[in-house]
C-alpha cells in the first residue's frame, strides 16, 4: 500500500510544480516592468549587458531581457514584433528595418572594431598587418584555412564586404580553404582555432573569449574594420504589443551622457571594448 501512496505523492508533487510553472509566468509578466531587447551574441558574450543592465535597472526599475542571437535572426524576430528594442550592428539592414516601418528611428550607439586572429605559424604571412584587403588577398593566395561564421550575422556581412573589396569569390572556395561554420562568434572561434584557421572576429568577443589557445591578433587597425552598433525602438504603430514608453526610456538612456559613459567604462583585462559615439544631445 505504501507504493500507492508514493505514487500519489509523486503525482501531487509534480502537479504542484506544473501549476507553479503555469502560474508564475503571467505573474512575473504583469507585476514586473520589463522589456525585451533583440541583440547579438557579440554584445552578450562580451559581457557588456551584464555591466550596463544593472545600472539601468537601478535607475529606472526596468528589467531588460536580452535575447542574444545572430543579427539576421534578431532583426527578423523584431520584425515579427517579438521585442521592444533592436540593438545590433549591421547598418544597411537596420536602415531597411526602419524604412519598412518596423522601427521608429535608428541611433548610433558605439563602435568596436574587427580583428583577424590567427595561429602562431601564420601560414599566409599576415601577422602585424594593418591592411585588411591585402591580408585577405594573401590568405586566398596561400589557400590558408579561413573560418567564417556564414550565418548572415553583422560580423559575417562585414567580412563578406571585405572579401568583395579584395575581389575574391569565397563562394568558389567554400568547403575548401574557406570554411563556413554556420554558427555564432564563439562557436566559430572554437571551431576555427581547432582547425588552425584565420578568423575575423569583433575585438570585444576576442578579448573576453576564454579559449584562445596560442592564437593572437594578426590584423588590426584598418578603419575598414570599423563595427558600428545602432539601437532602434520597434514601431508600436506596426506592432501594437511593443512597450514604446519603456523601450524609449532604454534607448534614451543608452545614448545619454550617462549611458555612453557606462559603455566607455566597461573594461575586460583593463582594455576598453566599446567606444561610445552617439551624437551628443540626441
Amino acid at each position, binding site marked *: 500500500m505504501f507504493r500507492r501512496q508514493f505514487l500519489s505523492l509523486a503525482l501531487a508533487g509534480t*502537479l504542484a510544480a506544473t501549476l507553479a510553472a503555469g502560474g508564475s509566468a503571467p505573474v*512575473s509578466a504583469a507585476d514586473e516592468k520589463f522589456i525585451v531587447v533583440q541583440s547579438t551574441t557579440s554584445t552578450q558574450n562580451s559581457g557588456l549587458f551584464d555591466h550596463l543592465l544593472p545600472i539601468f535597472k537601478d535607475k529606472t526599475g526596468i528589467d531588460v531581457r536580452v535575447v542574444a542571437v545572430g543579427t539576421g535572426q534578431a532583426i527578423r524576430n523584431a520584425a515579427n514584433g517579438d521585442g521592444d528594442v533592436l540593438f545590433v550592428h549591421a547598418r544597411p539592414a537596420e536602415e531597411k528595418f526602419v524604412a519598412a516601418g518596423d522601427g521608429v528611428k535608428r541611433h548610433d550607439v558605439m563602435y568596436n572594431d574587427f580583428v583577424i586572429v590567427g595561429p602562431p605559424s601564420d601560414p599566409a604571412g599576415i601577422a602585424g598587418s594593418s591592411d585588411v584587403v591585402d591580408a585577405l588577398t594573401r590568405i586566398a593566395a596561400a589557400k590558408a584555412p579561413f573560418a567564417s561564421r556564414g550565418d548572415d550575422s553583422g560580423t559575417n556581412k562585414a567580412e563578406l564586404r571585405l572579401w568583395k573589396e579584395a575581389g575574391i569569390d569565397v563562394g568558389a572556395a567554400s568547403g575548401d580553404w574557406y570554411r563556413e561554420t554556420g554558427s555564432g*562568434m564563439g562557436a566559430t572561434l*572554437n571551431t576555427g582555432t581547432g582547425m588552425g584557421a584565420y578568423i575575423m572576429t569583433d575585438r570585444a568577443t576576442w578579448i573576453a573569449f576564454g579559449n*584562445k589557445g596560442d592564437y593572437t591578433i594578426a590584423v588590426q587597425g584598418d578603419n575598414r574594420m570599423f563595427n558600428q552598433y545602432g539601437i532602434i525602438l520597434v514601431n508600436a504603430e506596426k506592432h501594437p504589443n511593443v512597450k514604446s514608453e519603456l523601450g524609449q526610456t532604454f534607448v534614451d538612456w543608452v545614448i545619454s551622457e550617462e549611458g555612453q559613459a557606462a559603455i566607455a567604462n566597461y573594461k575586460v583585462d583593463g582594455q576598453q571594448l566599446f567606444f561610445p559615439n552617439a551624437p551628443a544631445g540626441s
Partner: protein
Amino acid sequence: MQDFATTLGNAIGLILLGDADLIEIIALSLRVTLSAVVIACLIGLPLGALVGAFRFPGRAAVTVLLNALMGLPPVVVGLVVYLMLSAAGPLGPLRLLYTPTAMIIAQTILVTPIVAALTRQVIEDLHSEYAEQFASLGVGPLDRVAALLWDARYSLLTVALAGFGRAVAEVGAVIIVGGNINHVTRVMTTTIALETSKGNLELALALGVVLLAIAVIVNAAVMALRASAVRSAYA
C-alpha cells in the same frame, strides 16, 4: 584546457558554494522539464493506452506516426512553437514567447510522442496477457485503460524517465522559444551552449557534469523503486 578531475572539482565547488545563479538555473531547468514531462504524461499515457488496448481502423497508421514523432528534431519544434507564439503568430496575444511557459510547451511537444509511443508498446504487451480475462469479467473500456495503466505503472515510470531524459538534455527548442534570457529563461542546457560560445569550456563542462549528476540521481531513484517492485512481483 584543464583535466576532467579539476573540472569535476570546479563543478562540485560551484554546487557546494550554493552559487545563487547556478541554483536558479538548475531550479528553472527542473521546473520546465518536470512540468513538460508531467503534462506529456497526462496526454501521452492515456493516448498510448488507448492505441495499445483497442483495435480501430487506422491504428497501424497512428502507431507509425507516434513512433516517427519520437524523432522530432528539437530545433524544428522550437521554430514551430516560435511561429505560433510570436507576436505575429496566431497565439501572439497570449504573450508567452520568451517565458518558461513557452519552454514547457515546446518540451511537452517533444516529449508527448515519446511517452505515447512507449506507453502503447507497454500497454499492448500487458493487454495481450489480460485481454481475455478482462473480456470474461466484462471490464468496460474506461476501466480497462485505467487498470492497464495502473498495472503497468512501474514500466511506465521508465517511460516517463525516457521523456525526462530527452527533455532535460534538450537545447534546440528551448533556446529558440525561451531566448536564453538571464534570470528568466536560462536553463542548464542553454547556459552550456552560451558558455561554450564564450569559450568558457570548463564552466560549460562543469554544468554538463551537474546535468549528468541530476540525470543519474533521477534514474537511480526510479530504478530503486522499480527494483523493489520487481522483488514484490508487481512489475
